[in-house]
């Protein structure tokens, strides 16, 4: 038994004594190359697409410049799958083991993760690998260009799912009961009741064909997969596969601060209480810990980004300190980052951590704008709204099969980046194969309609 394995077992029994509750974790040592790929794809085996190749090169460049070091990746599920980097020291990997147990506890108990687990089952790694395999088969059957044009569209709309909705959805009801026409006004109402007037025909009831979609549909991947007039079955499958993976990514995305903070809180606590670790190993693990949760790069005094490990860790420590671990466990169960930051990041904590809101003006001048707590919370959360994407809904499917999309610019505050939106529309058009339109506003807030 290796040294690390021995420590890992001891850390685990300590974790169980301290009340961490999780599905079994399957650890695997992996080389740096696989860790890089996981950082790029989000999953160990995922569907092929050229855009991942671009991210891959960016990641390699970042790593070679020392901007990015990967410690660990963990995939929630039953069992959880964790990968440890084989070039990391034993101390670092002992820390990572403890960190992963924190994640495992979080993902079993947090409601968003639990919901996905209930809908999709706890085997995302295998599911994604199966998706990749099916797409490979599709490439063999239909050629790389055709599969690519489907993936271009599906991955471009990756974030456009209804995160509160169900993974497995039925089509809209085809017919709806016709509601009797409302009586127009008080006069008519009165007139109808006058004696001698013709007996009013009983309001027509019965079923009428429902409009599609019956309401603005934000689950674009599902909508296209289900209602695109000329998609072949395998093309629909690809949309649904991308959508299933998006459902998996959403809790990870929406709980990043909480989740990393929780794992950091637990790795710190587990190591602190792990009296079985030799002193030098504990010290180097502690060093690794402080590297992970520090707010800025070494030698800097400010950072124009928030380190989620640091922020989450700070908030969790405060919650445990003030309200006890049981309350913290409830918070871990109930909140996502929105609730976590809005409810638990208070003025005092923000001031201690030195949080601020900055503004970049034309000419790239950057100034500290405010230290108001609400502004800080919203600035932290702004990139997380709606899975980090503009709110775009399918508004209407016309009789000729053309699709109208509408951007909810009122709630997003401004219009879409038009050149990108045009390209996305081109991707969609290539699979929708009928006219596709997208309504948004330009920088002068005038309505514009893009078409493809």
């Amino acid at each position, binding site marked *: 038994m290796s040294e690390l394995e021995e420590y890992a077992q001891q850390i685990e029994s300590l974790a169980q004594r301290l009340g961490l509750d999780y599905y079994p974790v399957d650890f695997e040592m992996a080389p740096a190359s696989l860790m890089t790929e996981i950082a790029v794809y989000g999953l160990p085996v995922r569907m092929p697409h050229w855009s991942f190749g671009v991210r891959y090169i960016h990641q390699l460049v970042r790593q070679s410049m020392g901007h990015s070091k990967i410690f660990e990746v963990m995939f929630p599920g039953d069992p959880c799958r964790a990968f440890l980097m084989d070039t990391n020291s034993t101390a670092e990997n002992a820390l990572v083991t403890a960190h992963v147990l924190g994640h495992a506890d979080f993902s079993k108990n947090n409601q968003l993760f639990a919901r996905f687990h209930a809908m999709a089952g706890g085997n995302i790694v295998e599911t994604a690998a199966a998706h990749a395999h099916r797409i490979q088969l599709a490439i063999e059957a239909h050629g790389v260009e055709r599969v690519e044009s489907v993936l271009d569209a599906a991955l471009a709309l990756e974030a456009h799912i209804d995160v509160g909705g169900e993974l497995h959805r039925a089509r809209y009801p085809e017919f709806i009961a016709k509601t009797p026409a409302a009586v127009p006004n008080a006069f008519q109402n009165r007139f109808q009741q006058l004696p001698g007037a013709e007996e009013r025909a009983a309001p027509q009831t019965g079923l009428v064909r429902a409009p599609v979609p019956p309401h603005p549909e934000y689950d674009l991947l599902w909508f296209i997969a289900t209602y695109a007039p000329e998609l072949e079955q395998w093309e629909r499958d690809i949309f649904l596969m991308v959508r299933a993976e998006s459902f998996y990514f959403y809790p990870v995305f929406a709980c990043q601060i909480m989740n990393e903070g929780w794992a950091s809180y637990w790795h710190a606590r587990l190591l602190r209480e792990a009296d079985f670790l030799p002193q030098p190993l504990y010290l180097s693990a502690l060093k690794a810990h402080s590297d992970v949760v520090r707010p800025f790069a070494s030698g800097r005094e400010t950072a124009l980004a928030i380190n989620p490990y640091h922020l989450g860790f700070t908030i969790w420590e405060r919650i445990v300190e003030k309200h006890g671990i049981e309350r913290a466990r409830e918070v871990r169960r109930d909140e996502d980052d929105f609730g976590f930051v809005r409810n638990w990041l208070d003025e005092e904590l923000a001031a201690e951590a030195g949080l601020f809101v900055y503004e970049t003006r034309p000419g790239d001048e950057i*100034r500290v704008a405010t230290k108001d707590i609400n502004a800080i919370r919203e600035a932290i959360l702004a990139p997380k709204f709606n899975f980090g994407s503009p709110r775009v809904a399918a508004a209407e499917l016309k009789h000729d099969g053309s699709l109208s999309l509408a951007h909810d610019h009122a709630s997003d505050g401004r219009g879409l980046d038009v050149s990108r939106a045009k390209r996305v529309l081109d991707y969609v058009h290539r699979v929708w194969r009928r006219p596709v339109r997208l309504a948004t506003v330009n920088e002068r807030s005038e309505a514009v309609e893009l078409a493809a």
Partner: protein
Amino acid sequence: MTIRLAAETPWYDLFSRGARDWLRHNEKVRDAVKDTLPELLANSDLMTGPSSRTVAVPVKFLEHSRLRLSDASVNQGAGQGRGEPGDVLQPGREEGDQPGQQGGTGEGEIRFVVELKVEEIVDWLWEELKLPELKPKRTATIDQAEYIREGWDKRGARSRLDRRRTMKEAVKRHAIQGNGTSIVAEEPISLVNDDLRFRQLVKRPTPATSAAVIFALDVSGSMDEAQRRLAKQFFFFALQGIRRQYAKVETVFLAHAAQAWEFDESQFFQASSSGGTVTSSVARLALDVMGTRYDPGRYNVYFFYASDGENAAEDRDEARGTLAEIAQQVNYSGYCETGGVATFRPRDTQLAEIFTELKGGGLAVGTSHIASQDDVWKAIREFFTQQSQSE
């Protein structure tokens, strides 16, 4: 809890998914680059080089677009550290500074270079333009005899002994003669005269496969930079097309104003002169070159001439005579008139008239007018289509 260490080659080492997608991206970039090729190619000094040369094209990554909000005039973000409202964390750029000079653009833009083989590009263009293959001039081609290897014989000159064959024969003979044991025989195999094999040579007539291309360019004052660029592009693709066809292609660069000179390629397009235009001077020089170096009887000679069409009036007859003489001898002569004012011309220029007349006389002559980049393709297409039709 166990920590697994992969015992054998783990699945993820079998191939790199990141590299696979990166290669696919590059393939797509290549396809995109092809669209801008003509411009790229003609701007580099590639004409006389061996065709295995490559062009390096700097490109950006392809972007897989997502829906995104348009840029706000003021961007907000959350930061952490020392700082009070109003503090400047990063000064704005001064007027005239290059944006992103301080590496402030976050991700940083990574550029990379795609290398394309000129040969590959030309093949691709030919396919794209559906251009026919050239026909070597049959009548003027002398069949050149060539020795090629064919078969073996038991007798021959010592220098053509095929050792490998000979050893094979010896081994075979041993295997037959030895009573089944000699296959593993340790003793060296001995050779007898019967084992010897000599390569045989056979005389075969082969058609001439060399071509000479004579480029003539009017560099008088009236040809401006843009016109010369168009001429260069036309010349370049014409040459590439001829290169595809012939094993050996030699080039001659002639420029003229009132007089004509021969240049090498690097100076050819830089040459300029302020004198008048006397076309017969360059035609004479071309005839001279053909007479001394590239006998049209042995070479497939192509003559291309680019000019703005204006020639000295008194040179008219002289020019017609010499150009006709050229046209009779070469596989094809192409005249390419440059200049952007074609539509306003009340009549054909003098040179256009001469070439049209020659063409009317049944000679393999082509004329084209190039006013813009797109015309270069038309001209090339026309040239190759005509050339393959004329016998």
